[in-house]
């Protein structure tokens, strides 16, 4: 779609990386400020859409993601495990546990168990975007698993 080499490089080098970082940051940040797994997932999804529109395959660290279904399963599993985990230590499902740890150089960091749940949401949303792109986009041939049939 986009023929410009510069734009391609720009997306490849910068937008992808920065976008991924922003997405993860937004997800982490969600607990205390606007953001969260849903928004973070959508941002990473938007990065992939951008790659797609530039005629590239959605990639993470230059590796194309061929199996969005697996990512979807992983996200659901992560959310489910976080939901069920408190049951095994005698808590209610989805009960939050808060750990404070001190990291060198950074200082005190608070980890809340629900962050893992949020990342489950994150992966599900990313996977959904990828699935839609892969399957509705196939006709364009951009993420085609097979040789393009010339429709795009």
């Amino acid at each position: 779609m986009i023929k410009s080499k510069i734009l391609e490089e720009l997306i490849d080098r910068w937008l992808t990386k920065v976008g991924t970082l922003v997405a993860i940051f937004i997800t982490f940040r969600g607990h205390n400020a606007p953001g969260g797994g849903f928004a973070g997932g959508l941002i990473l999804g938007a990065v992939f859409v951008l790659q797609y529109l530039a005629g590239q395959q959605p990639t993470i660290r230059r590796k194309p993601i061929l199996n969005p279904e697996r990512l979807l399963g992983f996200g659901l599993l992560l959310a489910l495990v976080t939901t069920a985990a408190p049951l095994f230590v005698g808590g209610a499902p989805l009960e939050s546990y808060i750990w404070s740890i001190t990291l060198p150089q950074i200082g005190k960091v608070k980890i809340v168990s629900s962050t893992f749940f949020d990342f489950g949401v994150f992966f599900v949303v990313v996977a959904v975007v990828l699935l839609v792109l892969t399957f509705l986009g196939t006709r364009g041939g951009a993420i085609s698993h097979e040789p393009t049939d010339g429709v795009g």
Partner: protein
Amino acid sequence: MVFFAAVVAHFAVAVLALIGLRRRPVIAACAGLVVLAGTALVVATQAIGATSAPRKTIEWLPLLGFNFTFQVDGFAVVMALLVSLLGFGVLAFSIAYFEHDATFTRFVGLFMAFAGSMTGLVLAEDLFTMFIFWELTSVWSFLLIGLHDKSEVARRSAVRALLTTGAGGLCMLVGIGLLQNQFDTTSFAQLRDLAPTGTMASVAASLLLLGAFTKSAQFPFHFWLPGAMAAPTPVSAYLHSATMVKAGIVLLARTAPIFGDTGVWRWWVVLAGVITMLIGGWRALRETDAKLVLAHSTVSQLGLLTVLFGIGSPYATYAGVAHLVAHAIFKAGLFLGVGVIDHELGTRDVSKIGAARRAVPVSVVAIGACLLSMAGIIPLFGFATKEKALVALLDAEFGLVGSIALWGIVAGSVLSVAYSVRLLHALVRTPNDSASHDQHHAHHEASVLMRSTLAAPVVVAAVVSLGFGFAASTVGSWLVSPSSALDVKAVSKLALWPGINDALLISFVVIAIGAVIGWKAPLESKLAQQPRGERVFDVVYDSTIAGAKRITAVIQPGSLPIYVGITLLLVSIAPISAAFVDGFGSLSGLTSGTALEASVSIIAIVMAIGVAVLQSRFTGAMFLGGVGYAIAALFALRGAPDLAVTQLLVETLTIVVFLLALRAMTRITTRPVSRFPQITRMFIAATVGIAIPLLALAARDARTAPSASQDYFARSVDEAGGRNVVNVILVDFRGFDTMGEIVVLAIAALGVANLVRAAEQHRRAAISVKEVAGS
């Protein structure tokens, strides 16, 4: 608790058989034999003679009052012993029966799972525990009936059995729920102390009866049991005569002391039992397949037990326990005996089984003894128990119901003597042709070990029937503890020769008439049709499926405009009708927005109108996105950044998805080609346009309780460690909602993927067909 461990051990062997020892089913079967024998031993040593019944509660959902409670009282002991000892015999028999049969692995696993469930069922001390095991036995029964899953008949029979017992189980569950709700307990002992009366108790009792009747194949649910004979012989012998079908009887026995005096109980129990007895007996007399004769006789005998346990008199209960034991023994022996004959001759036709006399003489003699016990002939155990039943009903004073029960049982006994004698006749007479036998025998040379393994349980059953008959008074004293566990007054005794009394005279007459009928009854008579109950079931079943298909065809025609139209209309109907009932929301306070908000709103409105009037799909999609962005801006202005961010991102991605989809469509919106005319579309649009604002207005004024979010604000940092309340609500307070939402999201995405995949395959198939045609 050792009893609970015994139940678990059954399931462990089941898992072992189905997973670990798939290739060595005989070893798994031997492990099963050990567990069954061990269970019998544990029950016998721990519980017989114990002064108080051991009791154990395992908490499951204590808040809801759902716990597993087991109590090993006298009745539980006798039932558990029957389950494990008969299980032992039948499993031993099956090792020989299933020789060279690939389904043996599955059989062993399911059999042990069933035996474990049944043991749990008979040890259960409350309705809820019983229900859990009850349903498990239904499932194992379904799987075992359909053991030969290639057979259409077996599958249909399995479905019939499962749906019938399953429906009864659901009724029972509702009954249990009512009792739990009303009396706050499902324990048999506590319910007995409460002695519930009133409408609710009657309704609950009726529902429990439905459960018992479906499980124990009582009229009008008697049809599934003969169908279940599609299962291999060991399954029929164990599940469908000796144990599982007794589950309903166990339930009756446990609940009769509770509900015996509520209005409907006694009538219903007696009528169902008597009708079942007569129908079963009549059909047993006419059936030509020996196994089906036994099946119908089981139905008939279950009717007798239903009457005895359900009528609620102490002596009848005692007689019921005695006859239950007698029936389990002789009927298991008979089924296995027919299995031996079938195995040997390859036929179960009553006109041909006479040939078995030469082939398996020992088994035939044993079968004969069991038949005599079933007919109630002195000196077999069946005689003593049937005498007791007659005496109990002669003594009971229940007026008309009592008389119906008595004469029903007398008539039923005539039939049971008749069908027993008919089978006996079939065994002793010389068959017309013995060709089929010789032919079959030629390619069937079982080893001596296998043959004696097959015959042994039959012989044991016969010997026990005879031995218990001679030792009737001793056995009778053993049965005092079981029956008094059900009803403290049910203390009586058995005797082989009770002396000349009314019951004995009745018995003589019954035996005389029955013997004549049975001997004269033709062996070749053919039943023209499928049993009526089965036909009714099939009609109901088939029309339910057909109806479901028709409804699906109407509500899911596959047209997107229709789906969207129906969804939107339904969404609109609710707020509009609510507005007419509760009044319309007030418009006041709608002008509180700032100028910025107003201008954004105007942009949104203009864009929305643009979507409706624009001809190009592409521009329309863009405008739709614009509306979304404007809404996001409104969210941001109103101080909801989380919502705004999400809305913005979702809107962006939605536009992309739209564009992807649009590539497959024509560029210009054409006139609608669907069945929806333009005017209908406009009507739907207008309705939604009116309804949603109405909803918004009403929602604004609807709050009566304080906002839930106040509470969330207070708890957010302390309990969930987050300052962003919106996010904390999503991942913690209302995390279950989020969980559900992402699952829905995932399913929707997979749906998209599979639809596209299916379309792609369809297209490729079409292309390849075309290519083949072209070349």
